[in-house]
């Protein structure tokens, strides 16, 4: 990318030898870092593909001696895991749909329209985004109980929507700001209504942003632990995180089931991350931290 740095070095043989040494050291350090940091993930994958006898063997091997998918079959066919899976899917999808629909209008307003109170509204978003969940969970538990919604998926959808809206608005704002203002000005001159302009002109252009934010919201719901732990009681309503955690008591020492389950929960998230990596990094830098 930057030729000006490399060219003068190439003219000078001693410099280039130093550059090679630096490069070798950098790659060696990176290789060590990747190995240490990703070893736990590698170990989860490797363990989940080992038969039970190898999991609890005295002599461990880095890779399975006999590769097998039987742990995955056991967790999917022998436990309530599929129920947890669909529960998680349902709750995450519903809460994300609610929060994205509510958030996109608000995000467009603060991105594009000057109005008294828009700064106050942004501040409110920033502050509510920082409310600790452990603080919200007690009053929400009391409120949910009063409403008679304890131990229902509705309670979880409400809770997840509440804490994903501030974040979603904040992230979507950046995407709307990136759309050229001339487009909507032209539409307004052509006589389109303000709402029509938003729905027909702006929203389609914000498609990629909305997709990224939807993914983000879905993953947050998919991973959420504390509210599910507090608001649900029946095993057949459990979502994946608390379902998997409950394996610890239900199937003590069945690490084969726990690790296969953990791999199944991680896989879709990891897949989406690798596919949408660029978007996620942008959103992270633009939304949560830099503004």
């Amino acid at each position, binding site marked *: 990318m*930057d030729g000006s*740095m490399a060219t003068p070095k190439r003219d000078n043989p001693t410099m280039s030898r130093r550059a090679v040494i630096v490069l070798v050291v950098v790659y060696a350090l*990176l290789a060590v*870092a*990747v190995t240490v*940091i*990703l070893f*736990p*993930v590698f*170990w*989860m994958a490797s363990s989940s593909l080992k038969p039970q006898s190898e999991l609890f063997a005295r002599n461990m091997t880095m890779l399975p001696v006999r590769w097998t998918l039987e742990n995955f079959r056991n967790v999917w066919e022998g436990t309530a895991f599929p129920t947890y899976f669909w529960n998680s899917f349902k709750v995450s999808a519903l809460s994300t749909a609610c929060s994205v629909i*509510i*958030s996109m209008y*608000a995000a*467009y*307003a603060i991105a594009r*329209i000057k*109005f008294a109170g828009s700064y106050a509204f942004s501040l*409110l*978003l920033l502050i*509510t985004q*920082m*409310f*600790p*969940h*452990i*603080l*919200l969970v*007690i*009053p929400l*538990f*009391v*409120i949910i109980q009063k409403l008679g919604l304890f131990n229902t998926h509705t309670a979880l959808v409400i809770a997840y929507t*509440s804490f994903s*809206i501030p974040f979603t608005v904040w992230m979507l704002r950046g995407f709307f700001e990136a759309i050229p203002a001339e487009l909507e000005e032209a539409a307004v001159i052509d006589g389109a209504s*303000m*709402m029509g302009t938003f729905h027909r002109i702006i929203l389609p252009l914000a498609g990629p942003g909305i997709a990224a934010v939807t993914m983000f919201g879905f993953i947050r719901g998919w991973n959420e*632990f*504390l509210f599910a732990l*507090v608001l649900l009681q029946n095993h057949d309503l459990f979502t994946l*995180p*608390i379902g*998997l*955690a409950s394996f*610890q008591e239900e199937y003590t020492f069945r*690490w084969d089931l*726990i690790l296969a389950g*953990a*791999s199944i*929960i*991680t896989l879709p*998230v*990891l897949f989406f*991350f*690798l596919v949408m*990596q660029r978007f996620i*990094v942008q959103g*992270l*830098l633009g939304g949560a*931290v830099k503004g």
Partner: protein
Amino acid sequence: MYLQRRARFAYFLILPAVIVIALLDVYPIIEGVIVSLQNQNQMRANPEAFVGLKHYSRALFDEQIFWYSLGRSLVWTVFAVAGGYVVALALALLLNMEIWGRGIFRALFLIPWVIPDVCTALLWKWLYGDEFGVINFLLVKSGIVSKPVLWLSDPNLAMPAVIFVQIWKLYPVMFIVLLAALQNVPKELHEAATIDGANVRQRFVYITMPFLKKTSVIITLLGCIWTFQAFDIIYLLTGGGPANATKTLPTLIYDKAFWGLEMGYAAAIAMLMLAGLLVFSIAYLLVYRTKTQAEAV
């Protein structure tokens, strides 16, 4: 006229979000304050009886556990954030060079951040295990220790062990933000300094670090806010034990509210925790505002 209509339109657009935030974020906080002033002990009659500041004085003066937990929380937060920052900065500096495969390494270093908390916690429990944990296996096999280390059940080791997991979880976000900031450091500055005879250390101290200062402050404060209130990993790894060694404030609040059924007392502790968090948050908002203003200029 048009601008007025547009402003009205804006209020109409933000209305649903404002209503939801008011009902589900602001109102629960108010309800939380109310609960903290009420009896709210599920074991006793009349949970809604007003008890004033009784829970607060109990937490602050009568019982040691609040101050003890606050201390645990500070140890957990300071070490995890400091550790996360060091790892993040080191990796960001390495990847700030023009090398082949940078994008791949960047994606790989972000992976721990993507793993769901529950999976992270259970996975590390498996790694830390005393009988079948791979960490102990490798330590014993290489002769570093003679018998397995009880990472999670030794009161002296449990806190370092959970902090290590939090560092693993936390550093990726700090890393990606620091890397972005590093790429904004003008190359000419480094070149000019090199020509003037500055060595690597001098360039790092006098050019790179001043550029990273503000970003570092922001990301450290955010890291503190996130870590101070983090619950999942400790709860799943140690549950606050052994012998309360990892009983940070969130685990204490959870225990009091949902095991002790003392909602009022737990809410009071949560409010005290919020007061502590506000210090970080106000600092963050102040730095954040000066930063955006500086960028606008």
